[in-house]
């Protein structure tokens, strides 16, 4: 067994139980991070959007579909254990 693993195991086994204050803070932090949306736990910060191609006043600077997909995946990954919420809206015909 490597020394590193020994140290990790030791730390795991000797760590004192979380204090009441620490547990409270962890609970508050969890509550701040997430929102219960009809039983689905979502990240408290989602991704706002406007309709494709009609809302942005600077057409030259709009993200491409590839960038948009990258944004989705980056945001979802940043949400940790929570689901990402994406807001969309109606588009012009």
């Amino acid at each position, binding site marked *: 067994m490597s020394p590193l693993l020994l140290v990790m195991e030791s730390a795991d086994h000797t760590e004192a139980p979380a204090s009441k204050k620490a547990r409270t803070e962890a609970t508050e932090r969890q509550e701040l991070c997430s929102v*219960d*949306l009809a039983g689905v736990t979502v990240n408290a910060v989602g991704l706002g959007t406007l309709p494709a191609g009609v809302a942005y006043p600077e057409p030259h600077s709009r993200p491409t579909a590839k960038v948009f997909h990258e944004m989705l995946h980056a*945001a979802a990954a940043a949400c940790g254990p929570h689901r990402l919420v*994406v807001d969309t809206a*109606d*588009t012009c015909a």
Partner: protein
Amino acid sequence: MRSAATKARTPLSPFVDCHPFSALHALERELALGSAGMARAPVVSTKSGMKRMNDESSGWRPRSTPAGAVRKSIEEAQKALCPTGTPLFLWSLHNADGYAAPGALEDALAEAVTCVKEGLLLHIGLCNATGLLVERALSVTPLLCVQNEWSLFCREAEQQRPPTAAASSKKGMLRICAQRDIVFVAHSPLGGLKARRGERSVATKQPVLGGLAGKHGASPQAVCLVAMLGRAAQLGARVLLIPGARTAAHTADSCSAAALRLSDAEIAAVMGPVL
């Protein structure tokens, strides 16, 4: 996470948009495509009832609302966002404040309720709503969320609703939602389109954000978002912030903000006293 100095040079942008798509529901299609294969697909909130006038327009305008318009828009959104035929998770009436005439809001929401019964969507919300409209809506259907503007530039949601408030007032919505167990969705939390245009900035509006950003190793925008969440918690409100962005780095920065933690004093430094 990027350094605070880097973030200061590349502030979060307010909105996501997709170029060069301009066809109906192109973004929704890209959302469905981009989410394919994700271990946990995003929860999509959508809405209808308004439109952009043209490619250069910065303002929303109400769509005409012929009979059946709500149902048609829900059917379109469900088809675009849920290609496998599953129901929409959440649909909101976009311009609730345009349905103030007696019976108008109730009729529109009754169409949405029918769509729920038929399995086209699961939950209903309101956007741009007043306190009175929320009460009227609740006589027709439960509301999962209300989406109104809330930011350092627009504080009416956070303010107390005075007894003499006009019917059109949107003041007090955070507390109204808390009392009714409705999620408050804050649009434009970093200043919206005006921030994108450079006409305003949360970092300029509240200079203390710069110092806190350096202290916490986060962007001023991320600190602003978590301060807003802290203020919402102080008011007992469940709040979902939906800042926009134009890059993957900005979206990741925004979403990771929820994991930051500020003290009550730091929240007060950003948000000021409870209104």
